[in-house]
């Protein structure tokens, strides 16, 4: 701060401080939802039921024409009697029940007054708004079916599975239609339960490096190219020692994550993505032994619609970027720079916090200001033992795996299932794979953001992120995150609550509020020995199981 600022009077300083605090509070605290009456949809139709004994339409012997004429006349008499001349007969539900329309829809409060007038007539039994009803969308995908015992437990009602996200209720309002979610990951396989929701061919950002050739990319393309297909990311024993990484079969991680966002629903096959109406743009940035941060940053810029030298413009820029990846460092200058560029375009960046089991630290880019940092919980809503938490964590979403203090649900699905591939090295047949990790949690938040962006395209992504955070459910009593409030973010992801909150959300007048103030407080690991320290320190094994369907 320069010397000139020190001449601020006390009053001015107080004003400045209060404005600053108000700005932070507006970001950090739940916004006031609009009053429910104002939020209720306008009423354009009413259903009127007459009492028995009243001469009505539909009497024996009446023709359709005379019946309608009589009903219309009846409604007209009633309307005149109560001074509601704008009512017009529309149709009959039964001999005593008729539907009437208003000249134009009126606010719910106004409709209530009219209904009271009509119900005051002695011939009328009751009057109710003829509300628009939407189907409770329950996809016919077999992995979704089964309620509490479903393989896709993470999408179920939280009344059945405490850690689930209430996706089906949200789908009644939005499936993410018209929104593009970029998945920056290991590329994709054209899985039959995913392909029609992919923006193919995507783009491969793994750049050939003269020091290692195309080993990371593991394809024959020279550097960046318009083919984000995943050729496999297996690492053999000799390569593992040469490149200092673990021996692994191909993971098909990108296909798994993409399926969690946007697997095709209602096709009687496999499962459903959280935002199955959205489009998934695959951007390949991970290959063998991961990928370089520079390729991830370049891919993120391109996905958001920014230009990258030597790469054609992205014809389908994304509104949400998902990064189920990271590196255990601080957010460096290059990452901050790119995050700021992308945020300025009104694009959300969702990143997983990492799987080291840290209780006071999350990885980059999740720790970059402006990034929605997602930790993971198990099916009963407890923080997963592998999931990093700490300052900057925004929210928790289902990541599967094991936990500690809450009663376990032995025998019920615990891992997160999604689209995969059977190949151990090169691609094989489509299948479904079960994984656990914060990698699985982040795309569910990205998916919910897509639902909201489709429902409320007028809101900024910063607003929608705030909706997601503030609509989160409380962590279950006795769970890790209740012992260490703040480090796990605002709560458990709840798609239905987020959709409901988005309906009534008043747009913020300010700009991007993605950075600076965090919902989650500072890490509290110093406060005492965390309950799960020993468990978090256990060696974590690769847990992958093929689902036989």
């Amino acid at each position: 701060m320069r010397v000139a600022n020190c001449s601020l009077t006390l009053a001015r300083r107080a004003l400045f401080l209060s404005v600053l605090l108000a700005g932070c509070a507006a970001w950090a605290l739940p916004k006031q939802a609009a009053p429910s009456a104002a939020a209720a949809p306008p009423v354009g139709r009413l259903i009127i039921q007459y009492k028995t004994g009243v001469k009505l339409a539909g009497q024996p012997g009446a023709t359709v024409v005379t019946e309608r004429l009589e009903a219309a006349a009846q409604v007209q008499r009633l309307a005149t009697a109560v001074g509601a001349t704008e009512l017009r007969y529309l149709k009959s539900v039964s001999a005593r029940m008729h539907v009437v329309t208003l000249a134009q829809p009126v606010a719910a409060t106004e409709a209530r007054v009219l209904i009271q007038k009509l119900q005051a007539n002695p011939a009328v039994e009751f009057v109710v708004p003829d509300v628009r009803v939407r189907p409770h969308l329950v996809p016919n995908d077999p992995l979704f079916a089964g309620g509490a015992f479903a393989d896709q437990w993470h999408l179920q009602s939280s009344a059945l599975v405490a850690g689930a996200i209430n996706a089906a209720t949200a789908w009644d309002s939005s499936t993410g239609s018209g929104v593009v979610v970029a998945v920056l990951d290991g590329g994709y396989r054209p899985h039959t339960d995913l392909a029609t929701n992919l923006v193919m061919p995507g783009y491969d950002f793994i750049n050939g490096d003269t020091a290692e050739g195309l080993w990371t990319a593991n394809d024959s393309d020279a550097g960046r190219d318009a083919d984000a297909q995943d050729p496999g990311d297996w690492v053999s024993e000799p390569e593992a020692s040469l490149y200092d990484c673990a021996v692994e079969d191909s993971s098909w991680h990108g296909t798994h994550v993409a399926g969690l966002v946007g697997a095709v629903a209602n096709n009687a096959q496999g499962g459903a993505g959280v935002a199955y109406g959205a489009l998934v743009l695959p951007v390949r940035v991970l290959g063998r032994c991961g990928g370089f941060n520079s390729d991830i940053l370049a891919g993120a810029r391109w996905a958001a619609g920014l230009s990258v030298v030597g790469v054609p413009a992205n014809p389908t820029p994304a509104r949400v970027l998902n990064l189920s990846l990271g590196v255990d460092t601080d957010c460096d200058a290059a990452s901050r720079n790119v995050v700021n560029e992308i945020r300025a375009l009104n694009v959300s960046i969702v990143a997983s916090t990492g799987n080291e089991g840290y209780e006071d630290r999350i990885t980059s880019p999740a720790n970059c200001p402006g990034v929605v940092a997602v930790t993971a919980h198990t099916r009963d809503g407890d923080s997963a033992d592998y999931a990093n938490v700490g300052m900057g964590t925004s929210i928790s979403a289902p990541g599967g795996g094991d936990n500690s203090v809450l009663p376990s649900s032995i025998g019920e699905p615990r891992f997160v299932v999604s689209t995969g591939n059977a190949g151990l090295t090169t691609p094989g047949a489509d299948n479904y794979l079960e994984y656990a990790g914060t990698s699985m949690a982040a795309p569910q938040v990205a998916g919910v953001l897509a639902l909201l962006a489709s429902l409320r395209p007028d809101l900024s992504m910063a607003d929608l992120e705030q909706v997601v955070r503030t609509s989160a459910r409380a962590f279950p009593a006795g769970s890790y995150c209740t012992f260490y409030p703040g480090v796990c973010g605002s709560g458990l992801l709840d798609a239905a609550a987020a959709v409901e909150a988005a309906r009534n959300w008043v747009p913020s007048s300010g700009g991007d509020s993605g950075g600076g103030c965090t919902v989650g407080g500072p890490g509290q690991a110093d406060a005492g020995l965390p309950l799960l320290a020993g468990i978090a320190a256990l060696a974590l094994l690769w847990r992958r199981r093929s689902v036989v369907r």
Partner: protein
Amino acid sequence: MALKRWCGGLGGAGLAAAALLSACAQPVPPACDPASVAPATALRVIVQFREPVAGDAPQTAQRLQTLSQGCVWPVSSVSPRLYVYRFGGVADVALLRQRLLAWPLVQDVVPDHRASSHVDR
């Protein structure tokens, strides 16, 4: 000329390259050929410039090479201000950063870390 041949041949020399890297770390800037193959041990960094530059232009690479007192190989572009390079013959990123920051156009130098997926292993 001898240094040029050494640095230019490092990439194909496998493990022997590491042993020869010290040759590129001589106080006098070596004349490495940017078109040659970088050794796997060369530092991979992201250089952030204060304003848009032609990061892969020969004159930019030459300037960075001189400042680094090592060998430079352009790798890729992230944005008009962010470019990726491999540097050979420099002990660590901190030293490299210190040297490159002597150029006012260079705002920062960070390691190009290798990130990995967040599946629980």
